[in-house]
């Protein structure tokens, strides 16, 4: 009986395909297979030998089955391996791009600032782009004939009453009027603004402003400074230093300009910062008491600060862009680079 297994092993070693394997299976374990035939011998044996023979036969049967099954598995694996090998590809060939759009470059800056300030409790609101002179100027302490109107040089659309807003500040007025002098306010208003400038590398008749307004019962210029620090570091990195300089706006008092260390030379001095090491990125101040009064807030009770950024200006400083028209040509080759996280 041992010879049968030896014979089987030898035969299995010589074959490599499933058909031959099936033939071998029939030859040993089929109805007329050599192992099957052995079992018919049991009845001719004396009773005392039957048990031992039976046990041996079962053992051999099991072993033969295992040998054939494992050979089968091996053959199948070889076939699969061959197939997989033939399926091997050049993984260096170009991928199929999943369509994914890019943000507008200035729009990306706006979103970054929005998300930061929303996390600090500011709502994001917008107002009309065709605005009343009253909200755009008068209530912001810029009466007719005020010198600040010369430089803003506005697009009027209807007499001297309606205009394309020259700043997003009228949204502050609208929000304060809605607050009726009772509710604290924390908003930013990003949006389009318009001034009568001829478009060139540094001027645009249309641009994006982001203004912030916070009104509460106990707000100070130091709080504005702290808020600006957070925004500047968020936009330009932890190493970015900030400074306040006294300035003037009709609707804030005290007014400041907010500078950051020049992003392109890290404050060492370069042509971009005119060798000062500083770049102005925002104008701000404590809301003028007249503006508060105009909007129904009692300056004895309420105080607030307001700040404004130019989205294009921030993007130009942050990404090293030297022509403001870039934001409005929407060159897809340039925009592609802005579809990614950036920190």
């Amino acid at each position, binding site marked *: 009986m041992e010879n049968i297994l030896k014979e089987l092993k030898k035969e299995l070693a010589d074959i490599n395909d499933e058909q031959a394997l099936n033939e071998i299976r029939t030859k040993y374990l089929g109805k007329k297979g050599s192992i099957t035939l052995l079992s018919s011998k049991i009845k001719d044996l004396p009773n005392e030998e039957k048990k031992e023979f039976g046990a041996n036969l079962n053992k051999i049967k099991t072993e033969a089955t295992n040998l054939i099954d494992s050979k089968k598995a091996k053959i199948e694996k070889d076939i699969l391996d061959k197939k997989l090998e033939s399926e091997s590809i050049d993984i260096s060939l170009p991928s199929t791009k999943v*369509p994914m*759009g890019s943000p507008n470059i200035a729009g990306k800056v706006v979103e970054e600032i929005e998300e930061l300030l*929303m996390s600090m409790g500011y709502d994001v609101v917008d107002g*009309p782009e065709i605005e009343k002179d009253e909200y755009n100027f008068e209530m912001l302490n810029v009466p007719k004939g005020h010198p600040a109107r010369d430089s803003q040089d506005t697009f009027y659309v*209807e007499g001297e009453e309606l205009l394309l807003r020259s700043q997003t500040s009228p949204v502050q007025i609208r929000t304060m009027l809605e607050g009726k002098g009772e509710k604290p306010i924390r908003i930013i208003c990003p949006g389009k603004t318009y001034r009568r400038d001829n478009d060139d590398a540094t001027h645009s008749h249309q641009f994006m402003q982001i203004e912030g307004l916070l009104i509460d019962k106990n707000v100070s210029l130091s709080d504005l*400074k702290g*808020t600006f620090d957070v925004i500047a570091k968020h936009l330009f990195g932890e190493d970015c230093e900030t400074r306040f300089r006294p300035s003037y706006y009709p609707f804030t008092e*005290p007014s400041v300009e907010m500078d950051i260390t020049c992003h392109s030379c890290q404050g060492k001095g370069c042509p971009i910062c005119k060798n000062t090491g500083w770049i102005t990125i925002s104008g701000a101040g404590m809301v003028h008491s007249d503006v508060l009064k105009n909007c129904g807030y009692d300056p004895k009770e309420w105080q607030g600060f307001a700040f404004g950024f130019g989205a294009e200006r921030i993007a130009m400083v942050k990404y090293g862009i030297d022509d403001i028209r870039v934001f409005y040509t929407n060159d897809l080759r340039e925009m592609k680079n802005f579809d990614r996280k950036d920190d």
Partner: protein
Amino acid sequence: MISLEWVKDYIDISNEDLNELAIKITKAGINIEKVISNKINNLVVGEILECEKHPDSDHLNVCKVNIGNETIQIVCGASNVRKGLKVIVALPGAVLPGDFEIKKSKIRGVESNGMICALFELGLEEKTEETYNKGITELDSKAKVGTDPLEYLGLADTLYELDVHKHRNNDCYYHIGFAYEIASILNKKVMLPDIITKPVKDNIKDHFTLKVETDKCPFYLAKMVTDVKIGESPDFIKRRLNAYGMRSINNVVDISNYVMLEFGQPLHFFDKDTLGDKIVVRNAKENEPIRTLDGIDRILNQEDIVITDGKKPVCIAGVMGGENTEVTENTKTILIESAIFDSVSIRNTAAHLDLKSEASIRYGKGLSYEYTEKAIERACYLLEKYAGAKVLSGTVKHDKVDKTLKQVTFEAKEINSLLGITISEDDVKTELNRLDFPFEYKDGKFTVTIPTRRLDVDPNVNDIAEEVGRLYGYHNLVSTLPKCNIRKGEYIGDVKYRKIISKRLRNLGLNECKTYTLVSKEMAKQFKYDDKENKNLPNPLSLDKSVIRTTLIPSLLGVYDYNKARKVKDVMLYEISKVYDNNYNEDSKIAILMKGSYILNEWKQDKIKVDFYLIKGIIEDVLEYLGLKNRFSFRKKVLPEMHPGISAEILLDRKPIGIIGKVHPLVRKDDIYVAEISLNALMTNVKPIKYKEASKYPEIIKDMAFIVKKEVNSCDVESIIKKAGGRLLTNIHVFDVYTGENVKEDEKSIAYSLTFSDPNKTLTEEEVTIVFDNIIKNVEEKMDARLRDK
């Protein structure tokens, strides 16, 4: 431009480092853009010990010059060089104006170790024939050898070039005003110049009358001087005007300018003999002519203010004098005007005449009436001293100035609370003293009177806080964050929808564009699919930006053209912006433009090209993302600038909200697809998301195909199928549309795959067949259709 050598007349800054001072001033808010010093290194006082003829020249001299620590040899060609003279010596290393560096050299074989200079060579005098002929500058014998000659001559000067915000560019642009600013920073006192004259008995009122007939001249003062001797100005006036960039004319004209730069008050000098005995100030008449002292004839309008002699204009108030009463070399008697005019009016006049002058700019910013009075006295003082004038007693005056004191009362804690600092009442007192703001203090309350020179400061605690704050130093403020309630910020109103849709469109592969609201008339006329009229700007900057757009599609086509020109083949764009019609109705539009391959892998030849159904898919995705599933539909419609067979309206709740389709080939040859939707129309309430369990029981899927007329819309067939299918029909989609063999030319075959299921039990074939047959019957009847392959 401020001369520090001049400022020294009013405040002691002799011990200050002027560069350091500039930094302090800038920190306190007056931005000094540039510090310019005329100091020249290696310039010393020398004494000529010997002076002998050059052996090889008949006009050069060889000098031995003592420069303090040594004696050097210099060759000099000036005619006035001689032994014993004290002179200005530029030693090797000195760089004179024009980048001329002094070096050791040999002049005709003789060693020369420097240069003996004239003031014009140092840029301190104009180079004229006269100054040239004077030769080298002769210092007097008291000059100390080896020291800086400019210091000795009082010529050393440092200039500050200012870049100041509007509100401070009046008081900081004259020397006394600037001295007050320095005084507040250094905590020193300002000394005003002498203005006391010795008037003669004769009174101006006996010679002269004044009448002001316009409310645009609240303040007019006139004084008169006689016996004026026109001549050269004293050196200090010439030098200071020169430093400021003004040319010296003669003593009288110079004094008028000098006083303006001292007090900020422009003055006008009339030749009294040509003027006559009367002044009338009035509004100009329409088209009234005047020849100004630059010899140009100018035409005025009713907005302008003129000074007249009762008949004709003699001066455009605040802007420029007339030629007819100009001070000349023969002038003996002068009428001095010191006045305040309406600043807006002066700005307008200067603008329409294109005549911006030192005077008109200052009038345009507004003036302090106190200095209007002081300046006229100061001018008289200087004319008396430097032009031999006799000052008549009395002043002719028109005075309607509101002299109400600007006063504000506040407590120290209000300052602290605005700035976020803690300074004591004593600190506030110190700051107010530094500012030279008079105040009273009583029971914890300060009452401050704001000096008239500070036109920018309003009687308001915020204004005082700013003044205190900038002297305290903003760099000293400690950064804190507002102590407000913690809350989460939100996008409010349409901003919220803009953000949601913008992000979704970007995820769908479209790029966010920003284009201009103002467009040309031609652009504004295109794609006008609604009946909105455009608003034309009454006063546009240019024709290509003269109309407020009502649709964004033409702008996106512009972006397409731009990118196409740069060889970008696949262009997927969107923009969300506000639009306005001529009644100022506002809407926000979402516009989409797609062209080319949406998905592309060239080497695999995998490609999904943009067509109507792809852009429709984008729109559907956005609408479904907003929770509007089953509320929108598309209705075929011919639209302007669109392909008549490939364009449709988009409807929400059966109301049109936008358009979709292919751009007409006459507009662009390329296969461009566009869509535009009103964002405001999408701001509607939707049901909250609710869990819906998928059916546990097997679904039965059955297909059916109908032959219908070609013009039939599939959606109409679908709606009949849905209705007839009832609740067991859970899904339906088109899987084939066929025209060609076995289908008549005016017909088409549409095949639908229908899914049936029952949430509560396993459906039987029989149940489905009943529904299925009902559907076929309905479609055949209502759509004039027949089942295919029946």
